């Protein structure tokens, strides 16, 4: 079983089609909608937690991309505004998954995007408000 959080961007032409429905019907995937913004005649966005057998998951993703849905991993959506970050390091002990790390040589605070689960805790904890949630 795999379970991943992904962001789906639907181009305008797909917004009216029951794309996600096929994930259940054809690929037996479970999903949990974390966020959705779908408006007719506009681009749509959906944040999903997608769960199923690896084989089905891969097929499902293939189906989505084949239909023109653009998929991003969720972590790409918490962004550090490098212009505002002062590298103080206040975020380091706030992040529940250790996505921030103090580089003991450069003393800079590194942000490991791949570890981020987009929980958003760092956003209000950052004193200069350098962490931004982008969907």
């Amino acid at each position: 079983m795999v379970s991943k959080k992904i962001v789906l961007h639907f181009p305008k032409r797909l917004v009216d089609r029951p794309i996600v429905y096929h994930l259940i019907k054809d690929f037996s995937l479970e999903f949990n909608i974390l966020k959705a913004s779908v408006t007719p005649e506009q681009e749509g966005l959906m944040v999903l937690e997608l769960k199923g057998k690896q084989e089905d998951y891969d097929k499902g993703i293939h189906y989505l991309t084949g239909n023109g849905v653009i998929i991003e991993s969720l972590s790409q959506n918490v962004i550090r505004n490098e212009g505002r970050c002062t590298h103080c390091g206040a975020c380091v002990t706030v992040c529940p998954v250790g996505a921030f790390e103090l580089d003991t040589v450069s003393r800079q605070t590194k942000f490991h995007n791949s570890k981020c689960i987009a929980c958003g805790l760092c956003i209000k904890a950052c004193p200069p408000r350098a962490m931004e949630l982008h969907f």
Partner: protein
Amino acid sequence: MPKTIEEINLKIKNGEAVVFTAEEIISVVKEKGLKKATEEVDVVTTGTFGPMCSSGAYLNIGHSQPRIKLGGGRVYLNDVPAYTGLAAVDIFIGATATPDDDPRNKVYPGEFNYGGGHVIEELVAGKDIRLEATAYGTDCYPRKKLETWINLKDLNEAVLFNMRNAYQNYNVATNLSNKTLYTYMGILKHNLGNVTYCSAGQLSPLLNDPYYKTIGIGTKVFFGGGVGYVAWQGTQFNPTVPRTENGVPKGGAGTLALIGDLKQMSSRWLVGTSMLGYGPTLTVGVGVPIPILSEEILKYTTVTDEEIIGTIYDYSDAYPNRRAEPIGEVTYAQLRSGKITLQGKKVPTASLSSYPRALEIANTLKEWLKTGKFELTEPVAPLPSVESGLTFKPLKERPIEH
């Protein structure tokens, strides 16, 4: 062997000054020895970049037509209240001022996304600021209402005047309770979940001159990206705290009141800051040059994070209830390693003051000194040191009889 400030200034003018940062000087002295290094080195530069709440700016906005007396009235800058208890068009905006309609901690923990510190950052960045004022009106100042955009370049004076900056060492904070705390020391997780600290340590100005032998009133400094001066000792000045053998205070001791023209400063070094559940503030960049006038003065600048001790306090009980009950001591080297052991538990650490940006300040000041852009000043009066016996008194409450 130039060992007066005047002689060092001559070398600075000729572009010949030998300058190191407080980080570099550690290995320079290790290599050359104290005596030889004292002969060769002219200045050691320091730096610190952290949230400093006792910061603010006074502005003279010029007289409107007809005139308005803001003194005794109300003034808001981008909805943030400014102090008006001064002459007609002088106002003061403090770093922690909060808009009247901010929910503060009614929705706990309050976010405090905008306050006085942010107004100062935007002002120094050259952005237009919305001023709204009401006044009572007088025969000579008849106007009662004023709404206008103001801009830094149009103000008569805009002066950053911080009454307490650059704390010489500071408390190290943790949380022994079973709930999360939102403090000026950041988010403190329950049951010793983390430890936070806020000092540039071996780069910090007053930790490199622990007995204030060179830093005094009139010392010219790097201030908010521009040039400023030490105006006075900072508030809560407390030179008599316990010190290590090297003279390093084990907790908050000396502080600096600083002053400088806001118009030559930069928003890179004055950053509006929001402490969740605590309030808005201003992160300030300060750097002080230390003239190497003797072996003793140089020796103090070689202090390392291994030798600087911070005292740990519980911010769930001892700190808020003002009980001097430390729960441990730790060196800044240990804090900077990312984890310390406290009460048998490995606890992760986080800093609130930026070491890389403090280093950038020390390097900028070094560059200014090496290129003749910045000359040293002779202090006009010393700061009170240990022998002054000065202490930081708590408030003695005296109940008011009704």
